[in-house]
């Protein structure tokens, strides 16, 4: 079982510079938990203190938006999870 998590550029400092990390889990949330176990520094860039996904974070599974209820979205072997951040500059 392998699910690829694509790490946003601004978060790669927490994944030893890796742009893609292999993870596993039945849902997006489980895959992110697995990611955080290995790279705990990324946690506060994705979740608030109550464990809710930050408003600025967007999650896509296989190039399709996983919003709403991203964390309970089911994933299976070979899926790709993309973590991105909203942009506000103009």
């Amino acid at each position: 079982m392998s699910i690829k998590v694509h790490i946003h550029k601004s978060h790669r400092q927490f994944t030893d510079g890796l742009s893609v990390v292999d993870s596993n889990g039945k849902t997006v949330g489980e895959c992110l938990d697995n990611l955080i176990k290995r790279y705990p520094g990324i946690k506060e860039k994705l979740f608030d203190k109550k464990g809710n996904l930050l408003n600025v974070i967007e999650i896509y599974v296989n190039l399709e938006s996983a919003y709403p209820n991203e964390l309970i979205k089911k994933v299976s072997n070979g899926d790709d999870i993309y973590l991105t951040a909203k942009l506000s500059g103009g």
Partner: protein
Amino acid sequence: MLTQNDLERYDRQIMIHEIGKEGQEKLKSATVFIAGAGGLGSSISIYLAAAGVGTIRIVDHDTIELSNLNRQILHWNKDIGSKKACSAQNKLQTLNPDIEIQGGDETITEENISRLAAGSDLIIDAMDNFPTRYILNKYAVDNSIPFFHGAVKGFEGRVMTVIPGKSACFRCLYKGPVPEEKSPVIGVLPGLIGCIQATEVIKYITGIGELLSNKLLLYDGLEMKFTILKINRNPDCEHCGHLTIQEDT
């Protein structure tokens, strides 16, 4: 009706099969509202003015500062201290005296958006904050006119085209407020993202090509990578949830 001058000025784009004289006439008849005359607003407005969009209204409340000049190519060193709306109007009108440029030195609010955007066929996002983008998106959805979103940070940009009643809107992705920040930006980035937004606008006005609706285009300048992500309409969206979606036939 195109004049002899129009036929000459726009010759190279009239030559494009998909545009032709008919497309050029549509551009000439169009009225667009550009919200912001900063980095995105500079490239969007320059190319739409050059392309012959008949009426361009561009609104910004800011004053030009030295630190704007790495990316806001409508404004030059001599303009520091002037209003962006005024500088934009002068430059764009000089670039193309055959079209109408309306500069507005105002802050866009929920109260004045109806007046500012009145008569516009579409709204182009060249803002630097989320709250104003949501004001623009809501106005566009309520008035059934398209909204062309763009945003930038660092080397990364995104573009999305909203066709109310047909596609997901900008608010469909809303999860809650995001803290405001001052975005670092490499100057070429809003140039590129603004050009993509302007391309979408030209395609919409002339009715050609395929739009970035129900899609989010992500651009990563460092890896020189474009990614198109599928966006789904949120049936509970505060702005567009009440609309009945028409499928393309």
